[in-house]
C-alpha cells in the first residue's frame, strides 16, 4: 500500500483530531520511565520512549478483564468493546501481539481477546531511543511483525507513514499527510535499520540451536539452581513480558451480593502457587515446587516449547524482564548465553 | 437522702480506644469517681529505637489510626528539626491543606457519628438510619470526602504514605487540586449546610455545665494554629502565655497520679484542656469569617468554659477548614506545583515538634545518631493531656448531678457524653496505664 509523509509540526494536530473521536492509547512519561496510557492530549505522547514498563498488550488483553457477568438467573455475555487506536508501538511489541493473536486464536478462538484486538487500530512507530537491555535485533530475526495497520517512522523533519491495512489508511484523512518521496521512504528504511544495528545486547546463536540446547539442558538442575538462586518468585519477568499470557480466573460479587463478574487477571508461572493443586483436607501438591523449576519453565516457554507453533522464539527481545528483575537474573541474554556456554 | 449510686461503664463506647468510668456515691458523698484507661500498652517510644529516620514516622503513625495524619506530620516535623532537613513553602502549604483534611474528616466522624446519637437519644448512628436517612447519607459522604481529600495529599489517611521527612514522596496533580476545590464548593458546601442546620437545632441540647480551666493550643502568627506555631495557653481570666515548642516538657509536666492509673499532665493549674475548644479559646480571632459566623449562631464567644461545647467548636473548625482550604488551593494553583525532591539531613541531634491534631496539641521528640538512626523518641498525646481535666470535670459534674437528684442512668449518660465530648483517642496509648490496677 501507499506511504505518506507527515511534517513534524503536524503530528500534534493529527493526534488531537484522532483524540476527538476515538480512544487513543500511546506512550507517555511516568517519572523517568514510560507507560502506555490513554492520551488526554496530544502533547503527552512521547514517541521518543525507549520501552514501556508494561507492554501495550494491556490495551487488548487488560490486566483484569471480565469474561462473563452472572446474576441469579445465570450467566450473561459482556458487551463488545469500543474502537481504539494503539499509537506508537515498537515493532518488537507488534511481533509480540502477533504471537498473542496466534495463541488466542489457536484451537478455541477467544472472543474476549479477539473482539478487543479487532476493535484496535495499531500504529507502530520507529524506535528513537533504545534501552540498554534490549536485544530485539538478535531474537527471531526472521519473524517479521505483521499485526500493525500502519508504521510511523521518525525522520528528519517529520514522519513517514507506511500503510498496511485499510484501518491504517482510514486514519490519514485526520492529518495533513502528503505522499512520501522516494528519499523520505529510504530515510525511513535507514532509520529502522539503524535501530537494529544499534541494539545493544546480543544472543549469538540461532533460534533453532538455542531451542534445542536449552531444551536439552532441562535436567541440568545445577544450572537452574544457580540461575534461579536469587529468584524471589515475584513474577515481574512474567508480568512485564509482552508474550506472556497466562491468567487466573476469579468470581466477584457486586455490592448487591447476587450478581457479579467472572474475570481473568494476569498470572505468572514464576509465582509460587501457579501449579499448586488442592487435594482436599487442606493438603496441596505443587507441580513446580521450587523457584528453579518455575524459572526453568519460563525459559523453556520463551526459547523452546512454542517455537514450532510460532516459527520463532516466544521472546521478542524487548528487555523488559531484564530491566524489571530486581536481582537481575531474568535477562534471557544472560540465561541463554550461560546455557549455551555449557 | 440515702442513695447509693454506682455507675460503672466498662469501655465507654463511641470513643477511640478503651476507657472506663467508675463512680460510687454513697449518701451524697462521692466515694470514688474515676476515669480509667485500660488500653493495652504498646511501647512505641521504645520501638522507634534503632530505626532509620525514614521509617520513624511510619512507625509512630501507627500509634493512632484516627490521628495518623497528625502523628505523621508531628513525627516528620520533629525529625526535620533534629536532622536539619529543609522543607519548602510548597511542602508547608500542602501539609497545611492536609491538616485541614484531617481535622475536617475527624470532626465529621466525631460530631455526626459519635456525639449526635446522644443528642438524638439514640444508642448509635444505626437506629438513625431510618429516621434521619438524609443526614446519615450526608455524613457518610462528608466522611468519605474527608478521606479522599486527605488521600489526595497523603496517599491515604490511615497511615499516610506520601508524607516523608523533607517533603512529599509524591504530589497531587494541579488538576486533582482544582477538582478538590470544585468538589468543596459544589458537593461539600450543601452537605455542610445540612449538617449546620441539624447541629444548630440540637445545640440547645448540649448540657449546661461550666468549669473554667487552662486551655492549651498551638498559636501561629500566620494562621489559626494547626500545623505550626508556639505553645500558648489562655487562663480562665483571659491571660495568655507562650512557650517555644522545644519547651514542651515544661508545660506538660507528665506525672503518675497515685489515685489514678494514667500518666497525667498539668501546667499552671491542676489540669488543662486541649482540643477544638482550647484552640477556639486561644485563637478565635484567626478563624475564617464564615466560621466565626457559625460560632456566633451557636452562641459561642471565647472563653467558652463548657466542655460539652468542644463538639460545637469542632463544627466551627470544620467550616474554618473548608473555607481556608479553598484559599490555600487558590494560592497553590496560582504559583503552580513544582516537582521537588524531599529535603535531606544536614546534621544530627535532637528535635521536637508540635501539631494540632483533632483532639488537641500533640508533641513528638526524637534524637538521632550520626547514621540518622533513632536513639529515642517521646510522644505526648492530647488525649493524655486531657485526662486530669476530665477527672476534675467529673468531680464537679457528679456533685452537680447528685445535687440535682439525677438517676443513675442519667448520670451515666451525662458522664459518658462528657468523655465523648473530649473525643478521646485512647489508642494513642504510649503513656497508658492499666485499669486493673486500682488501689
Amino acid at each position: 500500500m501507499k506511504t505518506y509523509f507527515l511534517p513534524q509540526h503536524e503530528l500534534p494536530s493529527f493526534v488531537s483530531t484522532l483524540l476527538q473521536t476515538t480512544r487513543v492509547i500511546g506512550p507517555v512519561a511516568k517519572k523517568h520511565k514510560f507507560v502506555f496510557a490513554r492520551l488526554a492530549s496530544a502533547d503527552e505522547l512521547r514517541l521518543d520512549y525507549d520501552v514501556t514498563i508494561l507492554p501495550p498488550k494491556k490495551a487488548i488483553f487488560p490486566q483484569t478483564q471480565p469474561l462473563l457477568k452472572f446474576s441469579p438467573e445465570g450467566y450473561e455475555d459482556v458487551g463488545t468493546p469500543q474502537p481504539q487506536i494503539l499509537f506508537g508501538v515498537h515493532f518488537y511489541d507488534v511481533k509480540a501481539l502477533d504471537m498473542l493473536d496466534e495463541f488466542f486464536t489457536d484451537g478455541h478462538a477467544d472472543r474476549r481477546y479477539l473482539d478487543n484486538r479487532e476493535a484496535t487500530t495499531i500504529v507502530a512507530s520507529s524506535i528513537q531511543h533504545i534501552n540498554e537491555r534490549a536485544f530485539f535485533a538478535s531474537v527471531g530475526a526472521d519473524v517479521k511483525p505483521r499485526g500493525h495497520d500502519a508504521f510511523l517512522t521518525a525522520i528528519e523533519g517529520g514522519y513517514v507513514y507506511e500503510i498496511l491495512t485499510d484501518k491504517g489508511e482510514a486514519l490519514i484523512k485526520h492529518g495533513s499527510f502528503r505522499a512520501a518521496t522516494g528519499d523520505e521512504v529510504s530515510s525511513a528504511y535507514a532509520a529502522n535499520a539503524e535501530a537494529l544495528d544499534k541494539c545493544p545486547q546480543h544472543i549469538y546463536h540461532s533460534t533453532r540451536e538455542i531451542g534445542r540446547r536449552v531444551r536439552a539442558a532441562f535436567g541440568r538442575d545445577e544450572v537452574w539452581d544457580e540461575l534461579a538462586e536469587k529468584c524471589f518468585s515475584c513474577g515481574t519477568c512474567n508480568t512485564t513480558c509482552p508474550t506472556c499470557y497466562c491468567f487466573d480466573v476469579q468470581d466477584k460479587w457486586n455490592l448487591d451480593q447476587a450478581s457479579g463478574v467472572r474475570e481473568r487477571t494476569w498470572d505468572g508461572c514464576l509465582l509460587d502457587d501457579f501449579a499448586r493443586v488442592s487435594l482436599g483436607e487442606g493438603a496441596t501438591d505443587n507441580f513446580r515446587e521450587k523457584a528453579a523449576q518455575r524459572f526453568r519453565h519460563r525459559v523453556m516457554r520463551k526459547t523452546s516449547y512454542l517455537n514450532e507453533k510460532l516459527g520463532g522464539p516466544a521472546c521478542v527481545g524487548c528487555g523488559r524482564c531484564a530491566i524489571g528483575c530486581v536481582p537481575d537474573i531474568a535477562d534471557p541474554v544472560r540465561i541463554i548465553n550461560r546455557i549455551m556456554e555449557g | 437522702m440515702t442513695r447509693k449510686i454506682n455507675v460503672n461503664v466498662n469501655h465507654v463506647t463511641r470513643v477511640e480506644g478503651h476507657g472506663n468510668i467508675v463512680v460510687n456515691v454513697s449518701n451524697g458523698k462521692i466515694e470514688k469517681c474515676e476515669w480509667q484507661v485500660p488500653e493495652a500498652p504498646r511501647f512505641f517510644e521504645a520501638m522507634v529505637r534503632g530505626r532509620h529516620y525514614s521509617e520513624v514516622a511510619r512507625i509512630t503513625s501507627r500509634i493512632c489510626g484516627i490521628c495518623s495524619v497528625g502523628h505523621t506530620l508531628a513525627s516528620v516535623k520533629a525529625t526535620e528539626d533534629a536532622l536539619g532537613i529543609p522543607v519548602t513553602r510548597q511542602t508547608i502549604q500542602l501539609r497545611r491543606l492536609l491538616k485541614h483534611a484531617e481535622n475536617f474528616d475527624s470532626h465529621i466522624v466525631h460530631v455526626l457519628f459519635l456525639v449526635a446519637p446522644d443528642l438524638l437519644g439514640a444508642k448509635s448512628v444505626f437506629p438513625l438510619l431510618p429516621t434521619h436517612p438524609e443526614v446519615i447519607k450526608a455524613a457518610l459522604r462528608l466522611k468519605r470526602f474527608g478521606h479522599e481529600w486527605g488521600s489526595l495529599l497523603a496517599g491515604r489517611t490511615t497511615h499516610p504514605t506520601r508524607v516523608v521527612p523533607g517533603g512529599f514522596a509524591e504530589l497531587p496533580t494541579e488538576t486533582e487540586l482544582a477538582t478538590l476545590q470544585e468538589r468543596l464548593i459544589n458537593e461539600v458546601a450543601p452537605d455542610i449546610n445540612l449538617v449546620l442546620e441539624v447541629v444548630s437545632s440540637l445545640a440547645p441540647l448540649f448540657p449546661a455545665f461550666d468549669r473554667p480551666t487552662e486551655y492549651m493550643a498551638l498559636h501561629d502568627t500566620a494562621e489559626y494554629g494547626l500545623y505550626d506555631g508556639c505553645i500558648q495557653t489562655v487562663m480562665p481570666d483571659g491571660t495568655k502565655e507562650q512557650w517555644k515548642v522545644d519547651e514542651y516538657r515544661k508545660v506538660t509536666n507528665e506525672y503518675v497520679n497515685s489515685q489514678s492509673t494514667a500518666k497525667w499532665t498539668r501546667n499552671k493549674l491542676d489540669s488543662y484542656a486541649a482540643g477544638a475548644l482550647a484552640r477556639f479559646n486561644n485563637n478565635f480571632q484567626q478563624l475564617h469569617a464564615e466560621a466565626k459566623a457559625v460560632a456566633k449562631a451557636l452562641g459561642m464567644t471565647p472563653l467558652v468554659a463548657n466542655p460539652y461545647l468542644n463538639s460545637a467548636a469542632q463544627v466551627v473548625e470544620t467550616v474554618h477548614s473548608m473555607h481556608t482550604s479553598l484559599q490555600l488551593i487558590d494560592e497553590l494553583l496560582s504559583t503552580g506545583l513544582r516537582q521537588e525532591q524531599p529535603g535531606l539531613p544536614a546534621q544530627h541531634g535532637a528535635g521536637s515538634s508540635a501539631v494540632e491534631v483533632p483532639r488537641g496539641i500533640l508533641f513528638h521528640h526524637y534524637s538521632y545518631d550520626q547514621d540518622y538512626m533513632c536513639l529515642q523518641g517521646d510522644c505526648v498525646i492530647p488525649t493524655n493531656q486531657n485526662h486530669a481535666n476530665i477527672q476534675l470535670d467529673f468531680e464537679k459534674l457528679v456533685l452537680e448531678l447528685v445535687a440535682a437528684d439525677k438517676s443513675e442512668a442519667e448520670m451515666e449518660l451525662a458522664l459518658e457524653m462528657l468523655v465523648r465530648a473530649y473525643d478521646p483517642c485512647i489508642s494513642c496509648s504510649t503513656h497508658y496505664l492499666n485499669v486493673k490496677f486500682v488501689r
Partner: protein
Amino acid sequence: MSKPKVKVAFFDFASCEGCQIELTNLGDTVFLGLLEHIEIVEFREVMKETTSQRIDIAFIEGSFTREADRPRLESIRARANVVVAYGSCAATGGINALKNHQTDYREFVYGKDAEMPHLDSFQAQPISAAIQVDLAIPGCPIDQAEFARIVSDVLHGKAPTVPNYPVCVECKLRETVCRYQSGDHCLGLVARAGCGAPCPADGVPCEACRGMVDSPNQPALLQVLMEKGGLSQLRAETKSRLWTARFRNEE
C-alpha cells in the same frame, strides 16, 4: 427475598483502630450497600449497643499482648460462628511485634514505674495465639476493597483468598516505577500482596506490612537490600522487622 441479615460484630485489642476507621471510609454507597446484608450488632467505637446473642461473624482488630485479654477473646470465640482476625496487628502481630526484639521496652517507656503489674505485656502475638481464628486478613491498615470482597465471600460461605505472591505483582500490574529504579529499596519482593501496592505507587518503599509470602527468599533479600538498595548490613538485616518480626527465624 428477605434473607435474615448476617450478624456482624467488631472487637478491638492492642491496635491503633485504624482498620475500623478504614471501614468508615468505605463511603455511603458501599457502607450502606453492605448494611443491606449485614447487621452490625456490636462495634464499640461507633455504637453503645452490645449483644448477648450469637454472632455470625466476629471481626477482631489488634494483637494479643497480655494474658488479661485471653478471657475476652475466648468469650468472643464462644459466641461467634466465624472469627476473622483483620488488620496486621490481629493477623500477624503487626507493628506491635517490633518490640519483640527488645527486652527493655517497659523500662524505656515507663522508667521507674515499669514494674507496675498493669504494664504486664508479653510479646505481641496474632489473635490466633489465643484462640482459633477462621480467617486472617493482614494489612496496616486493611485495604477497603479487600475487606468488602472478603465480607462478600464470607457472606456466601466461600473461603476468601489472601494472595501468596509478592507485592511486586500488584505493583507491576499498576505500572509503578520500581523503587529500586529510583535509587531506593523495597520489601515488595517478599511481602504478601493483596493491598494493591499503594506504597511504591506513592513513592515510598513497601515495608511488608502484610507480612511475608509463604516462602520468601530471605538470603537474596539481604543481598539485594545491600547491593541494589544501598543499605548497610545492619539496616539490611533489621529491615524486615517492622511488620514481619515474627516471620524471621532469628535467634
